[in-house]
Every structure is written in C-alpha cells, then in structure tokens.
C-alpha cells in the first residue's frame, strides 16, 4: 500500500524555490532514502511533509492530501520527524524526553512498554535515564531523538541527516539501529548526505539535485550507477 506520495511538490522560501516540483512515494513498510548535495532541497522536502514549511502541490498520506495542515496535526496523523541536529529537549532527562515523545498518547501501560522498548533498542540511554539530554554526546542525542520519535508509534518516520556531525563509529551504530527499526516494519523516509550508507540501508532511493529529482530507483541499482558513483560516492 502506498503510504505517502508527493505530487509536484514545491516549496518557496521568500523568492527562492528550494524544491521545484518533485514526485516521490513511499510504500508501507519501506525504507526510502533521499540523497543529494548540500542545498539540494532534502531537508526542505521533509519540512514540507511534516508541515513546517508551506508547500505547493499535493502531499498524499494514506490517500488524503495533508499539504497545508499544521505541524501538530500532521504529527498526530502518525508522521514523526527526527529533526536535523537532533532537537532533543536539553534540560529534560532522557526519561522525560521519551515521555514527551508520547505526548499525543494517553495509554499509560503502552507508553511504559514503549519506554522499555526504547531502552532495549538503546541500552546506553537506559544507563543514563535520569541524566539530562544536554549532557549526552551527539550520537547519544541522536539515539534519544529516534527513540523519542518512536514513542508516538509513528506510521511514518522521517529522519533528517541522522549521521550529521557524528563520529564514524557512532554513524555505524545509528545505521544499525535504522536497519533494525526498518526490519520491525516501521516505514521510513531517510534524508542523508552519506550516500553510501543510506543506499546500502534502503530499498529505494531518490537523488535530489537543486530542488529536482534527477534519478530514482532501487537503492542497490543506484549504488552501481556510474553517475551516482561519481557524484555522490566519490569514485
């Protein structure tokens, strides 16, 4: 089933067109990645989907056009964004951050179970559950941001540059977790600059160049595409 599809989506920032009419879709249970250089419009696309940027065109989520809806409404429909630069609540403890992720829910038992699940996924966070998020390392904050996003039991998880600014060993760990979550059936749209890791983890991929989709297809195929290899894999 098609969970999300973008039809001719455009985003303007002032007079500048950051996204110039793109089409893409995500099937239920799929991990799709969006790769491209800095300023290609990847983050803007995610912002458009989550309602943080005003978008033209149609954004169909489970067949319903959600373009123009407010961010909190979209979050309540089950689309959860892990923002670029993590966006954890720095003065709140890890436990409080996770609880905040379940803001829209009221089933106490279910929330407690999901906190346990987040701690199984990220044992590091369990050790530091009462520590404030601001004291965590970048990688741990990224784990917390993902764990917090999962607390809302999203139907679609939007990940914005999860590897940004992290040490290589942390990047590997984050991608392990992304694979694990994907294998559990969570649908994900991943935006990454680290094209190789993203393509290796994804099923399908879109290549974005100055606001337009220039290539798309099976991730495995794109990994061997000479154009992609030259432009994004540094070969």
């Amino acid at each position: 089933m098609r969970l999300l599809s973008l039809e001719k989506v455009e985003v303007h920032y002032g007079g500048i067109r950051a996204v110039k009419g793109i089409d893409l879709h995500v099937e239920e249970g799929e991990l799709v990645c969006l790769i491209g250089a800095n300023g290609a419009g990847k983050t803007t696309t995610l912002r458009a989907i989550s309602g943080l940027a005003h978008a033209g065109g149609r954004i169909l989520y489970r067949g319903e056009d959600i373009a123009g809806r407010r961010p909190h409404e979209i979050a309540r429909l089950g689309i959860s964004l892990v923002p670029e630069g993590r966006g954890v609540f720095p003065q709140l403890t890890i436990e409080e951050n996770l609880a905040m992720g379940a803001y829209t829910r009221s089933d106490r038992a279910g929330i407690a179970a999901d906190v346990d699940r987040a701690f199984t996924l990220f044992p590091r966070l369990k050790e530091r559950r009462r520590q404030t998020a601001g004291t965590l390392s970048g990688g741990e904050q990224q784990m917390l941001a993902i764990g917090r996003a999962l607390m809302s039991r999203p139907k679609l998880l939007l990940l914005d540059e999860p590897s940004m600014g992290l040490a290589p060993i942390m990047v590997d760990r984050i991608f392990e977790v992304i694979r694990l979550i994907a294998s559990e059936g969570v649908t994900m749209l991943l935006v990454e600059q680290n094209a190789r890791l993203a393509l290796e983890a994804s099923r399908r991929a879109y290549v974005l160049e100055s606001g337009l989709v220039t290539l798309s297809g099976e991730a495995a195929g794109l990994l061997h595409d000479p154009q992609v290899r030259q432009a994004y894999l540094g070969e």
Partner: protein
Amino acid sequence: MGTISALRADPRLKWAGIVLVAAALLALPFALAVAGTAWVRITNLAILFILLSLGLNIVVGFAGLLDLGYIAFYAVGAYVYALLASPHFGLHLPWWAILPIGAAVACTFGVILGTPTLKLRGDYLAIVTLGFGEIIRIFLNNLSEPFNLTNGPKGIATIDPVRFFGVDFSTVTRIGDFALSGTLKYYYFLLAMLVVVIVVNLRLQDSRIGRAWEAIREDELAARAMGINTTRMKLLAFAMGASFGGIAGGMFSAIQGFISPESFILTESVMVLAMVVLGGMGNIWGVVLGAALLSFVPEILRYTVEPVQRALFGRSLVDPEVIRMLLFGLAMVGMMLFRPAGLLPSAVRKRELATGREDAQDDDGDAT
C-alpha cells in the same frame, strides 16, 4: 535535603506540616498586629503580589515567554472592578460577579497581546510586551475624553469594598467583644484565594498543559514535532497568566478603594518579574517566597533605617528612601551572585546551570 524528602515520604508528617502551616497563617495577623496594624495591610499587599507573581510565573517560568508588561493585566482587572463597582458609572455589581468578568477581560487582553507576538522570543518579545504595558497605562491616563471611561490621571475613587453575606469588608465587624477589622477580613479572603491559586498552579504544572509548556520552553520546533499545538499552548499561557493578574487587580481595587494609572507603571512590571526570578522561575514555592521577600523586606527597611541611623549617629544622615533602595539593590546583586537560579530553583533550572558548566566537556565527547 535528605531529611526533607524523608518527611515528605511520610503522609502523616506531611499532613501535620500542612496543619501547622495553616495554623501559623491563620494566627499570623494577630502576631503582626502587635507590631502595628499597618503590617496586616502590608501583608495583604504582599499576598496580592504573590498572586501576581504566580500569574507571571505561568508565562515566564512555565512557558518561557519573557513578559515585561505584565502589570497591564493587573491594571485591566483593577479598572474593570473599579468601573463596575463605583459611583463613576453608578454601577455597583457584587464582587463575585466582577472578579470573573475582570479575569475574562484580562484574559482577552492576554490573547490580544499573545496573538501578534507568537513568533517572537526572548528580547524581541520582551520589547513588545514592555510596549504593551505602557500602551495600557497611557490609555488609562487619557481615556477621559471624549468619553470619560477611566477618569484619566485623577483615577477612580470610592470603589465598593467586598461584601460577603452582608458583611462589609471595609469596616470593623463586631462579634461580641471581638472586633474583626476590614484589613483582617481581607487577609483571610486573600489567603483563601491564594490557596486556591497555588493548588491550581500545582495541578497545572503536572498536567499535559504543563508538559507542553515545558517542551515549548525547551525547543519549540521539537515541541511541534511531538504533536503539541504550540500556537494554542502559548496563547493559553498568556491567557491564564493574564486572568490571574486580572483577579489580583480586582482585589487591589476592592482593598484600596481608589486606583489611578500611577499604580501600574513599568517599575511594577519589573518588580513582579524580579519576584519571579529571585524566587526561582518555574518553581511555585520559590515564586511565593520571592514575592513575599520583595514585598516585606523594603517595608521592614522603611521602618528600621531611620531609627537605626538615629541610634548610631544621633540624627538621620541619609534619606530612608535612598538607603532602602541601595540595600535592596545590594541584596538583589548578592542573591544573583550566590543563587543565580533563584532562592528555590525549579529542578529543571537547577540542571540548566549545572549543564552550562559541563558543556565544554560534552563537546570533547562529540569529537572522539
């Protein structure tokens, strides 16, 4: 610290503590009356400031929105009461009707201030709210023409006192040999009101609304991603803070019997903010303490500075008002140096200052 938490853990001791505090507060005016009945009146004004600080704490402490014009809502509440219960318009509605109206009108003004400032934070928000406070005061000063709404700088006099089942709060009530002064009656009235407001605040802090404010204060974008309607929550903070201010203003009118725009100048806004910050932003008990201290200490100084000088030098060298402000300023600077998060900081603020020191270490951790 350990003993306090141990005390809290035992519900019997907790209740015993509450009963003790209640008894002390009920007996307080009689103890104060020994020092002079003026002190009961000062206590009443202190309670009004505690009410105001608790209202401002919702906006500043809970939601993290800096408001420098908060006294405007106090003014709105005070004028609503004055206009509806004085000879100015010949209206004499009862207090229980006016206080909710005052709260509602102040709430409306809160939304009026909140709506255009939704996208502003920090310094920018502070400037706009400061302007708002001044606009309200200037309006009150000038709305005597063409239609005399506020009576301008002359203010409104002979405002009705609170009347409760025929008991007039402005005069002495005699029950047998026992005389209950007006100030004393207001004291109990305000005390009851304070208890209600504190309970409402405590419940609010633990509620979903309180958590939403916390998220907004920490990171507004992330709060939105959590499904929090940040627009509505910020407006709610302004509206609730303003309502509490409006109620306090109404009581001020009733107690004073006379109000004029002079009571609602910028200094008052700053004073209420100082109470919140000094006590500990976001901590309800801290705010209560901060407001009580900043209300009482200047008064104590007012009564002690001159006699002390006379005793030491035989005459008054420095004007009491000057030395009072000097000591007051020194006390504030001292507090901020030694307890920067306030006297009783909220748990989160305490962490904020602690993490500030650990930030440098944290950056190293990222690089490895």
